[in-house]
């Protein structure tokens, strides 16, 4: 495929144009706007699919497309200040594009059912279109600056969609909270971008890689810490905000105020994953800054802590929200333990099954108009397709073999285990512990949710009897089933290129780990050959000369070390299978067989339960301590300074100076300007006026006579 403007740009532009168009027509032509929006994202999906197939066709690690154009150029002489924008597509981008457009298409279709009765049916799709184009723009971006632009655009969409039901006070507050909390991360992200700019001169991914490979960050310090660390931490703080890592996770549970499809798309599948995606892109920087243990610990705490909170939630969407935070924690663990492609794979698999879970939850909620799990039960007879989809997804997220979640999470946990057992840094032991513990809790709370919702006797017969499953149409079930199909592991672990057998347990020959390589210190020199091309140009890179990607069983390590690592991986895999089934069994015995009484646990660990129900008091901390004790007094102080000093001395003082100057200028004005110049001009004009106004009589015919006579005179003079 030849990559030009016309084959890549539509991915972003079609949803964007749909957004622009819909913004105008949505009030009058709601149905049409919805169709345009859905159609646009589907077309964009087709483009993404085409790119993906092309990359699978070439099947080389080094295949990339990098097109740039100059956004603005403020260079003056030798001082170069040029900002380029552009697109950068490599294997990771191609997979990401396919995931985003695919999930977004299905969620659009689902939304046509879910939001159908909503009075702001059309507006929802307007936001969705904008959001999707922003997300796709972020994925396609070749530099951090445009990533930041789209990042903020998504933040806005997230804000609008969380506050979609703005009549409810909670929704408004939640949207504000989400916006403000992610802002903390964004500020640091911007700081990181500036730090990188100061070193590299621009913020293109490839240039940053090149700079890192060339050692440009050596011996540079900012605020007394290495610049690489500074920039890395700043960028990672952006990730923490967007991907809801502790301690900036507080906004994501509240984001569930938004409509469920938007939760599925934004707060589960794509936008929150953008943070992880950014960290993955910036992995060499993280590595250079020696901050991987820090990242791993943050991820571990998030993964485990969110899982514990999810144990006690009764709202079905809250469970899913905390499970999202927890899974994002796993991805961050994956970055921290250097499990680059597993982390990315988890991003993809999580996006699929979490989108499916949210959509299932959405169809449950929409069918029974209730979100509280204690009031559900026995719904599997009423909602068989939903139940089926949710079951598959629960298997996937719990890490049952043959499902996607197992393939990705197992690899992260395996790598964590390897580091825990071999690395000198003991902090990794904690990370592995938190990871495995979180996996157990994940299996438990997901199946708790499943059992409470779909199994047993109906606990609230009123709700059960009024569940109107007949309203479920094709546009609600088909997306669910398609998504649930992709929870199967073989899609991610298989080899699509005929290299070896399809391995369902997925540790060998996967296309994922073959194609997506960690840009670590040893492989950064590849990027020095990468060239950016003009934006409009046709991609002329000779694809035949690229060497096909081959799976290296030893990961480039010596056979002995590789063997040891493989052994640990096997242990990790077995361990995680056992843990998953333990979790499922515990849930089964608590909520189906009822041989273990959950009430005993809550009463025995009452304090813990209380802490969990209050989300570890994070909200209280932020609102009560930081904002009220910290920010408000500071605010008071500032305002007092304003009133007492600035107003009193600076402004009032300036005013008195002015008053004095005014007296002088008034005299000058009155005597010289007014009487002398202005009135003098007036008088002279009036004198001329007396003469001239006889000419301007307003009688057109007089003018005409003058015109003709003057013309005649002019022509007469010319004719000599």
């Amino acid at each position: 495929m030849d990559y030009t403007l016309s084959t890549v740009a539509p991915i972003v532009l079609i949803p964007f144009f749909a957004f622009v168009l819909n913004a105008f027509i949505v009030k009058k032509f709601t149905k049409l706007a919805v169709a345009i929006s859905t159609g646009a994202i589907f077309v964009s999906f087709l483009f993404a699919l085409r790119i993906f197939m092309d990359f699978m066709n070439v099947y080389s690690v080094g295949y990339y497309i990098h097109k740039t154009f100059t956004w603005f150029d403020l260079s003056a002489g030798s001082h170069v200040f040029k900002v380029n924008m552009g697109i950068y597509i490599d294997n990771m981008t191609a997979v990401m594009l396919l995931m985003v457009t695919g999930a977004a298409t299905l969620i659009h279709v689902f939304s046509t059912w879910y939001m159908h009765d909503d009075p702001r049916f059309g507006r929802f799709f307007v936001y969705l279109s904008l959001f999707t184009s922003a997300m796709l723009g972020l994925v396609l971006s070749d530099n951090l600056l445009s990533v930041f632009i789209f990042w903020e655009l998504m933040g806005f969409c997230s804000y609008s969609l969380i506050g979609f039901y703005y009549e409810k006070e909670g929704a408004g507050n939640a949207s504000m909270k989400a916006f403000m909390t992610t802002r903390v991360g964004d500020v640091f992200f911007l700081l990181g971008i500036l730090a990188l700019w100061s070193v590299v001169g621009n913020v293109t991914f490839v240039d940053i890689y090149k700079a890192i490979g060339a050692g440009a960050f050596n011996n540079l310090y900012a605020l007394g810490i290495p610049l690489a660390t500074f920039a890395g931490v700043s960028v990672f703080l952006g990730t923490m905000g967007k991907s809801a890592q502790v301690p900036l996770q507080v906004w994501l549970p509240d984001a569930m105020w938004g409509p469920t499809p938007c939760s599925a798309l934004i707060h589960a599948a794509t936008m929150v994953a953008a943070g992880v995606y950014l960290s993955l892109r910036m992995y060499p920087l993280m590595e250079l800054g020696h901050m991987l243990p820090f990242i791993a610990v943050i991820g571990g705490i998030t993964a485990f802590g969110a899982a514990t909170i999810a144990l006690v939630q009764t709202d079905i969407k809250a469970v899913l929200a905390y499970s999202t935070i927890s899974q994002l924690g796993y991805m961050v663990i994956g970055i921290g333990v250097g499990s680059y492609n597993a982390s990315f794979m988890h991003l993809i698999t999580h996006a699929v099954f979490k989108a499916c879970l949210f959509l299932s939850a959405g169809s449950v909620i929409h069918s029974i108009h209730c979100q509280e799990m204690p009031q559900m039960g026995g719904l599997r007879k009423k909602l068989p397709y939903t139940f089926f989809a949710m079951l598959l997804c629960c298997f996937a997220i719990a890490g049952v073999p043959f499902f996607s979640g197992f393939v990705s999470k197992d690899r992260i946990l395996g790598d964590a285990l390897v580091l825990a057992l071999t690395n000198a840094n003991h902090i990794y032991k904690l990370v592995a512990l938190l990871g495995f513990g979180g996996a157990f809790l994940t299996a438990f709370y997901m199946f708790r949710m499943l059992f409470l919702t779909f199994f047993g006797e109906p606990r609230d017969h009123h709700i059960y009897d009024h569940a109107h499953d007949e309203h479920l149409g094709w546009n609600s079930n088909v997306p669910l089933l398609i998504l649930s199909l992709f929870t199967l592991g073989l899609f991610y672990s298989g080899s699509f290129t005929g290299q070896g057998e399809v391995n369902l347990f997925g540790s060998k020959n996967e296309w994922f780990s073959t194609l997506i390589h960690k840009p670590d210190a040893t492989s950064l020199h590849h990027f020095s050959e990468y060239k950016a091309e003009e934006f409009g140009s046709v991609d002329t890179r000779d694809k035949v000369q690229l060497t096909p990607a081959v799976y290296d069983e030893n990961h480039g390590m010596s056979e002995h070390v590789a063997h040891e690592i493989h052994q640990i991986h096997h242990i990790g895999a077995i361990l995680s299978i056992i843990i998953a089934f333990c979790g499922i069994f515990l849930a089964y015995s608590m909520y189906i067989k009822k041989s273990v009484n959950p009430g005993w646990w809550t009463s025995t660990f009452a304090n813990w339960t209380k802490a969990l129900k209050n989300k570890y008091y994070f909200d209280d901390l932020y609102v009560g301590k930081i904002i009220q004790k910290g920010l408000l007094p500071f605010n008071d102080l500032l305002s007092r300074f304003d009133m007492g000093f600035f107003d009193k001395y600076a402004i009032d003082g300036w005013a008195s100076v002015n008053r004095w100057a005014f007296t002088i200028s008034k005299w000058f004005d009155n005597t010289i300007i007014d009487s002398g110049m202005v009135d003098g001009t007036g008088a002279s004009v009036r004198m001329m006026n007396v003469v001239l106004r006889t000419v301007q009589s307003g009688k057109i015919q007089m003018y005409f006579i003058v015109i003709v006579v003057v013309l005649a005179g002019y022509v007469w003079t010319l004719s000599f």
Partner: protein
Amino acid sequence: MINLGSYLAISFALFVCGILVMIARKNIIAMLLGIELILNASALNFAAYTKFTNNNLDGHIVSLFIIVIAAAEAAVGLGIVIRFFQLRESIHIDDAATLQN
């Protein structure tokens, strides 16, 4: 008989008639009639010069545009006249001597 001189003479006569009408009449519509005469005189001049000099039709183009402009002028001019009549109940040119009110 058909030569440039006769055409120029006719065009000249039309033009002078137009000027006479423009100046002698006090009725705005009558003045517009004069304008039509003047425009036609100039258009005729262009067409004649094309024919009797190099015959390359550029003069015809100019004449065509003059006709176009005359049509536009008539439409807008008469629109203004009718509006003026609505306001003043008169189409006497001397009533139109002020810029406002």
